[in-house]
């Protein structure tokens, strides 16, 4: 037994329950496993305990009804032949097989699912007669945040709740470090721009008070006034020209720094994505990742923009204008501030209540695009089933949703905008009213009043904008956080610090008690062991979903085994350098993936330094040369996305040539001929015979006839190898392989089982 007790699997019973249980003969102290669920078997919330004593399994609960025994279920170990967990909807069950019937022992909600998956694994060992270890190591749950306990999206994910969001700013600023000089210049220009923008209103004040009202006490004489007028107008022009220059330089600098850090971020994110394992791509769809690389990184540019003309500049402007207003006339400044709380409240209301309605508009638009895309892409099916009218209705519904969403938001906005406009005007009206009276009473000059009104616009506008700060901040932090999440995700397939080199020649494979599951508690491969000698040709067959491709994924180390190990030439694949392993194991997939580019570039994808002679030889061996040469541009023919412009068979032959050029010691053919016509298949088979000679080859195929020449065939069922041997031996066994061959023969009316079995290799 482990030294320390498990919090999850050695839970103490509540004292009252322990007392009742003891009365009923339960030996709580002998229980090696005690855990609790949150549901009873009726599907209602109730704390029910599961106890495993050395020789029996019990469930206990405190009952509201007096006199009801604490023991709910009691099963002797000898009566249980199997334990399993079964997924329900929103929860699950731990079942025991008793007298050939699965009995529900415990029900649990999904919040407790992991605990019962663990308990089930322990109980299975207990049934086999071994005393399982239960200790604190069982409390570790990589799918939960170690800090707050919240379920993560996947093992090793970062907890979105516990992320230090303040640190995001620090990281973004750190990214700007190489551009510090430019950022300092930029900020200097921001301050200069704001300072200069305050001057024109002061000049207008002088213009009105000293120049445009000649003859008034203290004003300039008319002769001097003209000179002053020219000087002030020239100065105004000069200020506007300088400000334009500042904005130009600032804009360029902001654009340079913004686009550069976006570029840096995009490169880092993409670089990291290429280093992450296949398991990462199982969890996120390509669309999501594209949006992160292309969209979220753009927020970096937004950050720089916010510094130069966004919230930071606006905050400085509000403070600066406020100071000027108070210096001009503090009483009028206070009146100016009167509608400010209303402006702020209205703006907050807008961004919190009205702005989210735009989400609905975006959603409606996106659904409309989706509907249109589906209908137009599937127009042949629509027509074939005569469903044009139905699709028209479907489209009308989507289109109506867009119309209604737009109306909803626009009706509100048209009501809101004029109302907020009145609020903005309220300040001006108050200033006109009070200030006007003061001007008439000669307590205030007209110039000061006009300057005041000018500053008022400069004050209210950014104030309204500042209320969007929370909105921008949330968007920025969310998007940036998503970007940093990628950068912070550690590749699950880790490489050792000092990987071992592979021998020059070889090609042997050994699976030793390998167990693996994409989800931790549902193994897809169960305790599989087999060996492949160098140069041997192995076929793998089995029904869809039985684990054939998973075996291959493990060999190529797209995933790491949960238990056991895989050896290539006697070395555990986890001890090898990944690059070397991938160079050693070549894969030809069912759907050959070709990149946009020339045929030549696609052929040399894994071997950039291949000579034209090597490329020609590989293409010839793969039966690809003949069709390539027929293209007007031969090997320099440009092919589109995913090999557009080539047939399925042609794409496959290019992928075989690509693998051949890579010259792997071990070649994996995963349904390489299942998506091509018979003629192409024949050409591909011929190519494969040449390619696989003297290479360890593992081929997965649905068409069993393509595997009959394999040295050995492994039959996989439900994650285990259930049969192995040559084609003839397996037919003779009359097991699953025989069944599969028989079904296929009947389906294809191809050679009968007998004919197939009599065929000589």
């Amino acid at each position, binding site marked *: 037994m482990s030294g320390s007790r498990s919090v999850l699997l050695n839970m103490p019973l509540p004292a009252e329950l322990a007392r009742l249980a003891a009365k009923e003969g339960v030996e709580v102290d002998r229980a090696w496993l005690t855990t609790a669920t949150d549901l009873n*078997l009726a*599907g209602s919330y109730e704390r029910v305990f599961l106890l495993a004593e050395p020789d029996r399994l019990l469930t206990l609960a405190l009952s509201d009804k007096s006199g009801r025994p604490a023991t709910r279920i009691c099963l002797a170990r000898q009566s249980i032949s199997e334990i*399993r967990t079964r997924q329900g909807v929103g929860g699950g069950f731990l079942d025991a*097989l*008793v007298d050939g*019937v699965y009995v529900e022992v415990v029900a649990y909600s*999904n919040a407790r699912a992991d605990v019962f998956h663990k308990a089930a694994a322990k109980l299975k060992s207990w049934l086999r007669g071994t005393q399982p270890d239960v200790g604190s190591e069982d409390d570790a749950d990589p799918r939960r945040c170690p800090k707050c306990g919240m379920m993560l999206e996947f093992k090793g994910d970062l907890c*979105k709740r516990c992320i230090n969001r303040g640190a995001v700013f620090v990281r973004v600023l750190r990214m700007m470090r190489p551009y510090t000089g430019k950022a300092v210049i930029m900020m200097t220009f921001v301050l200069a721009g704001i300072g200069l923008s305050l001057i024109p209103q002061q000049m207008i004040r002088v213009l009105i008070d000293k120049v445009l009202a000649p003859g008034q006490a203290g004003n300039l004489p008319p002769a001097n006034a003209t000179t002053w007028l020219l000087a002030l107008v020239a100065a105004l022009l000069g200020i506007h020209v300088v400000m334009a220059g500042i904005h130009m330089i600032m804009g360029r600098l902001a654009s340079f720094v913004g686009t550069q850090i976006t570029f840096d971020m995009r490169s880092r994110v993409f670089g990291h994505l290429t280093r992450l394992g296949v398991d990462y791509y199982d969890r996120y769809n390509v669309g999501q990742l594209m949006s992160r690389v292309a969209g979220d990184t753009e927020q970096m540019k937004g950050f720089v923009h916010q510094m130069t003309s966004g919230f930071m500049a606006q905050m400085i402007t509000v403070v600066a204008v406020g100071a000027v207003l108070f210096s001009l006339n503090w009483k009028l400044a206070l009146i100016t501030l009167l509608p400010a709380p209303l402006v702020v409240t209205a703006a907050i209301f807008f961004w919190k209540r009205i702005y989210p309605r735009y989400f609905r508009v975006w959603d409606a638009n996106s659904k409309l695009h989706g509907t249109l895309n589906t209908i137009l892409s599937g127009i042949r099916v629509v027509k074939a089933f005569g469903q044009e009218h139905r699709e028209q209705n479907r489209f009308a519904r989507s289109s109506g949703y867009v119309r209604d969403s737009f109306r909803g938001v626009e009706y509100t906005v048209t009501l809101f905008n004029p109302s907020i406009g009145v609020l903005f005007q309220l300040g001006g009206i108050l200033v006109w009213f009070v200030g006007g009276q003061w001007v008439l009473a000669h307590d205030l000059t007209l110039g000061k009043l006009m300057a005041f009104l000018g500053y008022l616009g400069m004050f209210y506008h950014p104030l309204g904008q500042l209320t969007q700060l929370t909105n921008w901040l949330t968007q920025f932090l*969310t998007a940036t956080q998503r970007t940093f999440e990628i950068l912070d995700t550690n590749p699950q397939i880790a490489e050792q610090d000092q990987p071992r080199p592979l021998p020059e020649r070889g090609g042997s494979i050994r699976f030793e008690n390998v167990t693996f599951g994409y989800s931790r508690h549902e193994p897809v491969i169960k305790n599989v062991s087999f060996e492949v000698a160098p140069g041997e040709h192995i076929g793998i067959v089995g029904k869809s979903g039985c684990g054939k491709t998973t075996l291959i994924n493990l060999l190529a180390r797209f995933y790491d085994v949960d238990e056991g190990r895989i050896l290539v030439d006697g070395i555990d694949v986890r001890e090898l350098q990944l690059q070397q392993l991938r160079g050693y194991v070549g894969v030809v997939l069912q759907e050959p993936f070709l990149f946009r580019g020339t045929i030549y570039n696609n052929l040399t994808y894994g071997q950039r330094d291949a000579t034209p002679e090597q490329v020609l030889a590989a293409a010839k061996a793969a039966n690809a040369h003949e069709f390539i040469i027929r293209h007007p541009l031969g090997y320099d023919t440009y092919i589109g996305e995913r090999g557009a412009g080539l047939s399925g068979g042609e794409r496959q032959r290019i992928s075989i040539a690509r693998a051949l050029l890579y010259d792997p010691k071990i070649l994996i053919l995963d349904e390489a001929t299942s998506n091509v016509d018979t003629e192409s298949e024949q050409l591909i088979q011929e190519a494969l015979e040449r390619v696989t000679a003297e290479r360890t080859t593992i081929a997965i195929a649905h068409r069993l006839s393509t595997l009959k020449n394999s040295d050995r065939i492994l039959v996989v069922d439900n994650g285990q190898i259930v049969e192995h041997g040559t084609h003839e031996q397996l037919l003779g066994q009359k097991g699953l392989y025989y069944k599969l061959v028989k079904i296929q023969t009947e389906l294809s009316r191809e050679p009968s089982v007998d004919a197939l079995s009599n065929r000589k290799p």
Partner: protein
Amino acid sequence: MADEPTQPESESGPDPTRVRYLTPESCRIHLGTHGALHVTVRDERIYGGVYAAYAFPVAYGDQFISLLHSAGDGKDVEIGLIRNLSDFPPQQADLVRQALARRYFIHTITRIHEIGWKYGFVSLDVETDKGRVQFMMRWKSDRAVDYGRRGKVLIDVDENRYLIPDLDALSPGERADFTRIIYW
């Protein structure tokens, strides 16, 4: 109903290629050993460890209910479909309803007290058929999926499910608050 002992199973079973409708005349639903749900199909056998599943949970709540049996090898076999649960004697129908309640652990939301959004998470404080519950869900379209024309199923961070059968049944304020955040 008292537990009945499980009788030995015969070899015969349902044809996996055809839909078989179970009727009160062709079968009897009862409890067997250790309270497990059993179905005795006339002239066929007794199936133990039976569980029930809706074929159309949204469109036909009390109809087209599949009764499945876990065979000893762990593989699930459909015994048959109940076309309409109300055709069965109340006691038997109740056993099926209890089995459904066990399999579908879903909270039905009757009122939204509070809904908030922060950094990609939606927090909800709701009244459900199982009492008042607070939970958090990720703000993602696959965490709030459509249920019929006007309903939504919310899936929290623990994968627990919360059903709003009809958004229109919520008060206008609750609906507005809900659709402001879960707008899809």
